[in-house]
């Protein structure tokens, strides 16, 4: 094969890997949307917040140390040498569950029966609040997240692909980040686990019942509030996974929360109510934007990744408003 084709394949593969990352964020959106009809804009910030908390625990930082130091004139920073990654992940998960409980208790409970767009704007408020809170708790500096996942290019894959090129061409093999492969693997495990959970456990069934019809679920004795807490906790868990993957890849910084915006076109493509849709949508966007940047980008100035996903979603919406796998939108007066 000529290097040109191989390069294109490489771009597509990397696009697929990016797409997996988008899907991870989009999954959290779909979960909450299915169970409560809320479009949770704060999902991306939840990922940021989870990653910040994880690093904070891992390095043994004192929450709000900055604030405490300023108010009381002290100089605390760390309470100890930190803890291992596993324990830190468990503790972060506990924080995310607490957060889910608080969100249900303080915000969602009071907004029952409001229009979806009001709820959407409330989650924008939540996103701002959590962003401020996360920075307040752990500091706004860019942090490095390392929970022991391997990273860097895969040499094995480079060696495998080098021989594909035609003889005599100076082709060095394809570059694929091992971390991306891990992310893809984890995403697959996550989707399988979520599907099993929603199909075969009692809570999972209750969850699907709520997604189908709130009132019918209430009449058969399912507690909406519990379900909402469960759903937000699961979304918190997905956010944690997404935060870990993105954080390991590019460091923990504010731009992490902007990934939430990228997840929106992914959702539109896949349909808001479909878990497989979130995955497929993520892959299409990932491959699409990388290919577009690779082929057409140089002609029109580059950096097209900023907007390609949105424009693609926009064009797509014109023809299929409910997305690839979404339920058909039926409107009645």
């Amino acid at each position: 094969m000529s290097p040109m084709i191989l390069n294109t394949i490489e771009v597509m593969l990397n696009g697929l890997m990016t797409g997996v990352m988008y899907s991870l964020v989009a999954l959290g959106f779909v979960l909450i949307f299915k169970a409560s009809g809320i479009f949770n804009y704060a999902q991306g910030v939840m990922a940021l917040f989870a990653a910040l908390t994880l690093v904070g625990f891992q390095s043994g930082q004192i929450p709000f140390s900055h604030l405490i130091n300023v108010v009381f004139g002290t100089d605390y920073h760390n309470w100890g040498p930190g803890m291992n990654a596993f324990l830190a992940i468990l503790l972060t998960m506990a924080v995310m569950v607490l957060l889910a409980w608080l969100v249900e208790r303080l915000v969602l409970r009071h907004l029952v029966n409001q229009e979806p767009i009001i709820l959407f704007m409330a989650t924008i408020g939540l996103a701002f609040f959590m962003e401020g809170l996360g920075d307040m708790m752990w500091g706004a500096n860019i942090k490095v997240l390392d929970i022991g996942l391997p990273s860097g290019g895969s040499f094995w894959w480079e060696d495998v692909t080098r021989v594909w090129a035609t003889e005599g061409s100076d082709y060095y093999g394809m570059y694929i980040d091992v971390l991306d492969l891990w992310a893809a693997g984890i995403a697959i495990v996550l989707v399988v686990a979520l599907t099993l959970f929603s199909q075969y456990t009692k809570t999972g069934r209750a969850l699907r019942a709520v997604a189908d019809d709130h009132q019918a679920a209430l009449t058969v004795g399912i507690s909406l509030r519990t379900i909402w807490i469960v759903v937000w906790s699961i979304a918190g868990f997905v956010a944690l996974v997404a935060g870990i993957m993105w954080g390991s890849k590019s460091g923990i910084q504010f731009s992490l929360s902007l990934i939430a915006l990228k997840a929106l076109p992914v959702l539109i493509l896949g349909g808001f109510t479909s878990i497989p849709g979130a995955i497929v949508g993520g892959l299409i966007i990932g491959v699409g934007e990388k290919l577009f940047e690779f082929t057409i980008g140089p002609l029109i100035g580059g950096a097209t990744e900023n907007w390609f996903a949105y424009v693609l979603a926009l064009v797509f919406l014109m023809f299929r408003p409910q997305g690839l796998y979404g339920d058909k939108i039926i409107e009645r007066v």
Partner: protein
Amino acid sequence: MFYRESGDFKTSYAADQQTFPIRFDRIVIALVLVFAFAVVPFFINDYWEKSILLPFLVWSLAALGLNILTGYCGQVSLGTGGFMAVGAYACYKLTTGFPDLNIIFVILLSGGITALVGIVFGLPSLRIKGFYLAVATLASQFFLVWLFNKVPWFYNYSASGQISMPERTLFGTAVTGSAATPWATYLFSLLFVVVFAFIARNLTRGRLGRSWMAIRDMDIAAEIIGVPPLQAKLSAFAVSSFYIGLSGALFFGVYLGAVEPTEAFGIDKSFLVLFMIIIGGLGSIFGSFVGAAFMTLLPVLFKNIMVGGFGWPTDMVQHFIFMLVGGLIMFFLIVEPHGLAQLWRVTKEKLRLWPFPH
């Protein structure tokens, strides 16, 4: 007792249909206008101009625009930053291309150009609704900002990629550029805001405004009773973008003087304006002003109290303001979804009855 409609009899249709039918409103507005036009310019200094009054005026124009689209017509848009960028770049290209064109026309034309762009990006609203549309408008936000970054023609091939406003005068007084005095820029912006607030008020209570509100309340039902959704939605996009374009032109030309698109017209600006209208009150002209005042004054106030008073570091105050704004958004959506404007309405009700409880 203080605020009442009774006893205010109208004897002609013109009097009955005037913009502010209640005498109390007219008196208050007249007093505010006199104060704003005749008193403030004598006391304005650089600090008040740059950190309070000009941002307030510019953002209230943007909030007015978004409120027309979101509050009156029910189409949520996250593309405000992008449209403001269109206004700013149109202003720049027009004023550098035609240096003799009066600055008022330049700014009006920038609004017009933004309106055309708004119509193009509003076309999807005919097919898609709710937050699907919100996502679609994100496309305009990111695409437009990218466009102004990448196409050198827009920034006249300047090396820095920035655009900066040359000095333009009105009646011999500089209103843009570094030589412009605080009172001149203030009065210039105020003029636009007052005139277009008045127009907006009248638009929203006329046929056009009523068709927007019908679409907002239930688009299918509106269509059935004969409101053309194509005209209603696209006109809302056009008028809204016109206002946002004006605000973008003033933001660039009068307030900042020089901008860089990614920094000045990012997605955070879109959210800022959205927050203004949520806090101020969706579907209220008065609310747009209150919201803009609230969102421009709040950070200034907290910065003064916390940095100046408590000696906190600036970055922490920044985070605190984030938390506060986010918390306030949720608070308002829960407690008072109609925003500060509704609080004013409640106060008016109280004033009407005072000193009796019922």
